[in-house]
């Protein structure tokens, strides 16, 4: 008859203790174990789980075991941990659906996102252009409120960042141009860079961070609190009632913020050049006016309109497709800002390449 080896479980039984017992069992090639639990008086769930884990390892090695001095309730718990079936679900599996791999699933999800965003834009265009001709088709007061919220309230941060950017540009340019005695050309460099690229880009990035995230979070929390379902149940178009005022607000506010960022950015360069470098004020202003054409301003504005469409459609799409409560709102808001920044960068690259190659022919008659 095989001799039964006795293992005494200590009152503070842990995974480590189980491990040391198990090592001994293996090294001594023990094939039959009596687990003595008489020293343990309190059985928290963790101790049950540790013991169950120890027994599972014995089972795995085909080592016979038996338990001694264990309370009945604890035995029930350990039995549950050892022999429970996978959690039953009330959901019934449909016929087998082929499992698509991750890449294909990503492609399908992305395609679905593109299609739903295009549909959303179609709906927004309809209500923006034709809404004013319907009764209650356009919420004027709400749109004005949104313009104030997205535009007016962003003026401070846009002024701060654009001003700093203008100063930085001027300082960097001065360091280079002073070597050639061409400091007056700081006006050209600052003016062109701000008006054609940095002004629209700054305004767009700040709007994506400030307004895009706010729109996504607002819509996401409305989805979570069933406000969107309430609107749909009442037969009120979510696009018309909630989305269009925000979309129109960004469409109006962002070009205005871009112009504002241009002016403040150029002012930053002007202040540094006149105060620090001693360039006469009138020279700097004349030089700036000569350097910047209406065409440059228009290019900046076109970029800002594209940015507004990008930010609004991504923010709204992410907001309306929020799921998973508070965590889901956080996820959607992050996605909204990150996707907006990526698409803004791509759009600016696209326009810069477009205007570079068509630069000699593309002129706006302003």
């Amino acid at each position: 008859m095989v001799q039964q080896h006795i293992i005494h479980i200590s009152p503070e039984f842990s995974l480590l203790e189980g491990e040391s017992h198990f090592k001994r069992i293996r090294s001594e090639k023990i094939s039959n174990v009596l687990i003595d639990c008489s020293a343990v008086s309190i059985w928290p769930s963790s101790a049950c789980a540790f013991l169950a884990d120890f027994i599972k390892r014995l089972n795995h090695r085909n080592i016979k075991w038996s338990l001694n001095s264990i309370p009945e309730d604890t035995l029930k718990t350990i039995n549950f941990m050892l022999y429970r079936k996978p959690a039953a679900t009330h959901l019934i599996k449909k016929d087998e659906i082929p499992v698509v791999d991750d890449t294909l699933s990503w492609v399908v999800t992305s395609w679905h996102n593109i299609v739903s965003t295009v549909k959303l834009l179609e709906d927004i265009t309809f209500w923006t252009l034709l809404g004013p001709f319907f009764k209650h088709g356009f919420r004027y007061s709400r749109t004005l409120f949104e313009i104030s919220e997205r535009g007016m309230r962003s003026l401070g941060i846009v002024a701060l960042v654009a001003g700093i950017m203008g100063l930085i540009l001027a300082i960097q340019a001065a360091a280079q141009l002073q070597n050639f005695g061409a400091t007056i050309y700081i006006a050209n460099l600052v003016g062109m860079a701000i008006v054609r690229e940095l002004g629209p880009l700054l305004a767009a990035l700040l709007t994506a961070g400030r307004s895009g995230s706010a729109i996504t979070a607002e819509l996401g929390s409305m989805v979570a609190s069933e406000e969107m379902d309430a609107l749909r149940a009442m037969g009120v178009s979510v696009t018309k009632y909630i989305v269009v005022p925000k979309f129109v607000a960004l469409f109006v506010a962002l070009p205005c913020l871009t112009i504002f960022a241009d002016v403040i950015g150029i002012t930053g360069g002007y202040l540094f050049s006149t105060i620090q470098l001693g360039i006469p004020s009138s020279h700097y202003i004349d030089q700036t006016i000569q350097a910047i054409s209406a065409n440059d301003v228009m290019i900046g504005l076109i970029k800002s309109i594209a940015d507004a469409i990008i930010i609004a459609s991504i923010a709204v799409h992410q907001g309306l497709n929020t799921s998973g409560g508070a965590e889901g709102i956080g996820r959607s808001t992050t996605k909204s800002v990150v996707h907006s920044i990526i698409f803004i960068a791509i759009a600016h690259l696209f326009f810069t390449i477009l205007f570079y190659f068509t630069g000699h022919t593309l002129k706006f008659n302003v």
Partner: protein
Amino acid sequence: MNKKTVIEVKNLITSYDDNVVLDNISFSTHEEEIFAVLGGSGCGKTTLLKHLLGLLRPDAGSISILDFDITKANDDEMQPLREQIGMVFQGGALFNSMTLAENVSLPLEEYTDYSTRVIRDIVDWKLHLVGLDHARDYLPAELSGGMKKRAAIARAMVMDPKLLFFDEHTTGLDPIMAAELDRIIVRLRDELNITVVVVTHDLTSIRRISDRAIMIADAKIIASGTIKEMEQSGDSRVINFFMQHDKEEQLI
């Protein structure tokens, strides 16, 4: 006297991804009836409700509401029906940026040509019906849970619907407020002759107000009829549901 059928659901099947959540559901409700959909948490009650509201499309089966098949209708075709349906969501789903009066008046502003004064009268009447006369200018954030639910009822009632849906109307309320809300529902049904569909797991409330009910478990209807008939059902899941609830009530 035979009462007219208001909702008729036939062989409804719906699924999320590859899981069937409602499997071959069929039932009907009659006018001026308080009809309950019972079931444990996550059994598909709210999904069924969203189908009845036309917010979700089933995989198969048909849903007819007020003699109109909503399973094949698009949003435009649904519009006249939606004006005859009121819905009270679990958390109230009031718009946080609007006052109570603005929330309640929203459907009137959208669908009618009524003057501001008429709208104000209707809104004040509906708020009076649910005992919120004094709170018309409050924002939802300034209200208690029970007040929010009552405000949501006022909003759902504002278009004088023929059919009123409630999703877990007693959730988050103390027993006294839950009983008060039940009284309001019965009174609205009696005074306005509407049909009420209540989706809940609260058996106490259902015993107080419902005329008939169905119970959903494992994606299927496992019992139907009056509460008494359901209590006599032989299905162990139904008996378990009732016993569990009674035990909890004794503990309270």
